[in-house]
Structures are given as C-alpha cells and as structure tokens.
C-alpha cells in the first residue's frame, strides 16, 4: 500500500526518482559539461529508476504527443543548452497533461512541463527561463547531490508516493503539485541550490539573447496563480524558496546584470511562443473545464482562437465550456449555439458539433433547426450510442 493509499508494488523502487525531480544540497559533485563523466553506482541507480519513470509516463495517457509542440520545445531547449555551452543530446522535453503549474527534471535528463505551466507563460523568454532552471538541476547533478545528502527522507517518500499516483489511479490528471506532500516539501529542501538554479537560468537567458527581465515576470505570474489558489507557498518547483523571494532575487540580478539591452530580445508577444504551444492551450483548457476553472479555460480558448480563429475544435471547446459552466441550465444557450454553429461551419463533418448544436437549438425552442442539425449528426454518426434517443426527438 502506498503512502497515499494506492496499492502499487513499485512504489519503493520509484521513490528515489522523486528525489530526483528536484534534489538539492549534498556533497560536492562534478558538473556535467557535455562530456562523459564517471558515474558511480548510486547515480546509475538513479538513472535506471528515472528511465523506469520516464517509461511509465510514456505509457500513460498523460504525455502529450504533438510534433509541432515537441519541435518548438526542443528548439528552445537547444538554444538554452547552447547558452550553457553544452551539447547534450540526452535531454528530452515532454509535456504532461496537467492543469497545475509545475515543471521538473529527472536525473537522466528528461524534463517535464505541465500543460498548466505552458498555458500560463506568456512568451518564449519565460519558457527559456523555466527550461534553463530545470537544465541547471540536471547539469549540476542536483539529484545526486540531494541523494547523497540523504536528508529528509520522509519528504522523498511522500513525493515518491505521489508519483505513483500519476501512473495509475483515476485521479492521475491532478498530479504532483496539487498534493499536500509537495507543499510540505517546500520547506524541506535547500534554498541555496534553487537560488543557484535561478541565477544560472537568468545568466543563460541573457546569453541566449532572451530578456532576462522575463524571469521576474514569470515569478509574478506564479504569484498570481498562488494568490488565486489561496496558497501562501509556491507549488511550482515544489522544493523552491518562496516565490516572492525568487522574484526579489531576479529583480536584483536584472539590476546588477541587465545584459546587452540593445540586443534584439525574444520576449515580444509574437515571438512564436503562442503558435509554438498553441495546441497545448486547448488541451489545458479542457482540463481547466474539468476543474471548473472556467475563467482560466475561457482565457486559454480565446488566446488560442486569436492564433487560430478558424479552428473548429476550439469553437466546439468553447461551446462545451459554456455548457459545463452553465451546468446544463438555460444560461448562455445562444452563445453556445453560436460556438457550435461556427464549429460545424468550419468542420462540417464533426458529428459532436452538430449534435450539440441540435440540442442547444432544441433547448432554445428552434425546432426546425434543431431537427436539421440532429439529422446531420445521425448521418455523420450512424452508429452513435444515443441514436435512438435522438431519433425520438425527430
């Protein structure tokens, strides 16, 4: 039985991994510089277990597989690695379907970004800052240092139990950062290494030609999320110092080392970030709808529609957002119908859009239009489970 009450025999074998996700402190360990280093037995074990967890993620439904998004993230990662002066092909960046704001890296170089984080960030510079921070954990072998310090095992156990929940249970989509265990780990880790990673991230951003000031902006965004969630401690980077403290640090670095202010910066709104992660916005909006965070979902869909105004799926998602927000009551039926109608116009072969349009018309009392839409739905989806019910409406 796991700590969170979920039966999972592999728990113990995966616990160290959690360590991994953030480790700090510990004895002196040589930094990766893109060259092979001697790997001791304990680090090999970490890597093996990281590989297991990476596979578990890959086999789960949580991993978002989108070539365009992956390509974009890999390109930004390459720029950051270049700034670090490292060529390390072993780095892999993944996106996890999780509306909570978080990111972490495993000791084998696999970096995970939550959809909630990507939906929150505003531009590529902020993304580069997040990646640079995680990569510093990897390059600095912080997990190994953390493991060797062997401090606060109980925190790691809790964290490990948490990862187990990711892989199986019905609540997998809620993931890591929502759990009290993560929150409790905030105070349990060394702030020094986190600050070190932030500082390294800032330098890497500047070196890569990004606006270093966007690191501070990232912390402001995180603080806004924390305020919204009513938490006093950060749940982003679970083991980090308080976000306000990080914001203060990043502002100080900005003053002390602003970088070449005349150099072109990649922090404009049209810097490619939006289109680079666009599909993630829609995925995360659906997750936010599930959590009934309708305002945030609405913002994401609108942001997506500004990028891709002719995307039928986005209009359908907006209709669904309105439907769930209304809870099935009569509120917003007209706007719902407009959204579904637009989806059917843009993608005439999308059966669910015709069905929802027909049902919205039915609720409004536009009988003839309702019947036409529902007929079209049945034509497109002749074996639908609800066929007999829909037929009774005709």
């Amino acid at each position, binding site marked *: 039985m796991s700590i969170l009450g979920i039966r999972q025999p592999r728990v113990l074998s995966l616990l160290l991994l959690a360590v991994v996700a953030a480790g700090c402190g510990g004895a002196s360990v040589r930094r990766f510089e893109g060259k092979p280093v001697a790997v001791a037995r304990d680090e090999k074990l970490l890597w093996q277990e990281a590989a297991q967890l990476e596979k578990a993620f890959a086999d789960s439904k949580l991993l978002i597989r989108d070539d365009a998004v992956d390509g974009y993230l890999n390109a930004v990662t390459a720029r950051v690695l270049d700034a670090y002066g490292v060529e390390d092909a072993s780095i892999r960046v993944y996106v996890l379907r999780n509306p909570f704001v978080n990111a972490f890296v495993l000791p084998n170089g696999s970096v995970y970004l939550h959809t909630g984080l990507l939906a929150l960030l505003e531009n590529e510079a902020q993304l580069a800052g997040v990646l640079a921070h995680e990569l510093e954990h990897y390059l600095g072998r912080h997990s190994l240092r953390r493991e060797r310090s062997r401090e606060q095992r109980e925190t790691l156990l809790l964290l490990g139990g948490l990862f187990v929940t990711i892989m199986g249970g019905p609540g997998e989509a809620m993931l890591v950062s*929502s759990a009290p265990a993560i929150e409790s780990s905030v105070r349990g880790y060394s702030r020094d290494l986190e600050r070190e990673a932030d500082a390294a991230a800032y330098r890497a951003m500047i070196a890569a030609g990004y606006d270093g000031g966007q690191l501070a902006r990232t912390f402001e965004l995180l603080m806004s999320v924390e305020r919204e969630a009513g938490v006093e401690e950060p749940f982003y980077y679970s083991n980090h110092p308080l976000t306000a403290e990080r914001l203060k640090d990043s502002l100080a670095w900005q003053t002390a080392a602003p970088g070449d202010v005349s150099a072109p910066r990649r922090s404009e709104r049209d810097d490619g970030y939006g289109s680079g992660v666009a599909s993630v916005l829609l995925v995360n909006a659906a997750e936010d709808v599930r959590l009934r965070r309708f305002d945030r979902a609405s913002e994401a869909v609108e942001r997506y529609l500004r990028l891709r105004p002719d995307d039928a799926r986005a209009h359908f998602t907006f209709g669904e957002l309105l439907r769930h927000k209304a*809870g099935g009551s009569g509120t917003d039926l007209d706007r719902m119908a407009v959204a579904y109608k637009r989806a059917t116009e843009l993608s005439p072969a999308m059966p669910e859009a015709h069905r929802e349009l027909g049902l919205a018309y039915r609720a409004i009392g536009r009988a003839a239009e309702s019947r036409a839409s529902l007929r079209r739905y049945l034509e497109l989806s002749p074996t639908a*489970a609800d066929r007999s019910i829909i037929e009774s409406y005709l």
Partner: protein
Amino acid sequence: MIPAFILRRAVKSLALATLMTAAVSSRVEAGIDDSFLVPKEQLVAQVRTIALSSPVLPPGVPDPERARRTLEELVTSELRTLGFRVIDSSRHAQIWRANAERLGGIFDSVTGEADQTKLQTCRDYTGRELGRLHGADAVGDIIVQRGNLAEGSGEQVSWRGTTVRPDQVSIRGTWLAFLLRDLPGNPMYGVRRTLEWTEVHASQSHELRAEPELARPSTIQASVETVLFDLGRAVRSSRPVTAADDNDEAAGSERENPAAAAQTGPGMSAR
C-alpha cells in the same frame, strides 16, 4: 435466484457508489474541503432547482416504497427549507424510463450488469431533459448503502463504557449518501454519513436492533440533516435563505452539526 429488479437496484447502487468514490477522490485531489466537489460559491450561484432521483436502497429493506417515500420527503423538505426548488423523483423516473426504453434497456436481463455506455447516455439525456422541461439545474441522488460502520469510526470505539479497538468491533448498519450532480453529470457535492446501526459484535457480545431497517423517520431525519449540513451552511452564508414553497423555517438560523452527536451503535461512540 435473485430477482432481476433487485439485481438492477444493486447495480445502480454500485454505479452510484462508484460515482461517489470517484467524486470524493476528485475532491481530495483538488484540495476542496468538506463535502463540496466544486467551489461552494459556484454551486450556490448555479443551483436553484434540484431534480431528485428515486432513492436507491440496498436489497432486502422492509417496505422499500415507504422507506423511499420517507427519505425523499425528508430530503425535499430540507432542501426547500434552504430555498431550493425541488422536482420530485417521479419526473426523473419518467424521463429515465423513457430514455432507457429507447436505448433498449440499460441492464442485462440475465446478469443484471449495466451497459456503461448506455448508462452514461441515459444519464446525460435525462439531465438535459430535466433542464429543458423542468428547469432543473442539478440532479440529487439519495443512496442508502449497507456496510461496517466501524470502518469509519477512527482510532478508538467506546462500547458501553469500555474502549474497544476498531478491529475488534463490527457495527453493521446503513450509510446515507447524498450526491448532487450538475446536468452534464459532474459531481458537485457528495456526502456519506451513518444512518443507523442494525447489528453489533463487540467484546464477545452481539446485539441486534429490534426494529427493521429504515423504519424510524426520526433516525432518517437526523441522517438527512447531517448529509445536507454542509450544503445548508454554504447556502446560509452565501444568500438569504427563503424557504421554497410553503416551508417557513427561519432564514439564516445556525444549527449544530448533527454528525457531531451521532452515535454509531447502542451505547457506542467513535472518535
């Protein structure tokens, strides 16, 4: 042989219980406290009219129709006191039956097992029709389950003045659960609380309740108040409570949570 209708009831009960479990899991993960599965302000703002489904009882309850009627009347009265408009379960049953017939039946006539796709479809369209025809904003499920009440009794159980370890006591009885779903089927509020004990084994003693299950309205009333307590508190703190229909309970009155005083068995308390 177990009659098919009992099997159907059992399956429906199991399905609802599963829904409750999933709902409570979501609540824990989402970090939402007490009985709410969504922010309570959202629920209070969104739900004005509740359509009740027919109370689900475990098989073998004596005079089940009377028990259902009592449960529904008490829940209805409590909800109306809180200012909700309540649509009685006959409306839900009528729409549900019609949809189930259109789908060719939801339960396998031999095994009693539900076709999950049909079940979900029936639930979805029943919700939509309750909204369209009756202005419902949510569906309320009333579920009675049997179980070992000691499981939820905490670390110590007091049996006639003696402390008994929970693993040395068995308190059989019933739970009352109330689940509120929005019309698309998303759980909004879910509670399960002790209803009454029926049989106790503790310290080598055995006691059977003299009365049949669900026979005493006052016991059901106490349990109903308990499962609706958090909802009532949220409503009272969010809006002036004006009892719906002709119910005129004083608005804004605060009551003690009956759960605090609830006993799980004869001479028995849990902490």
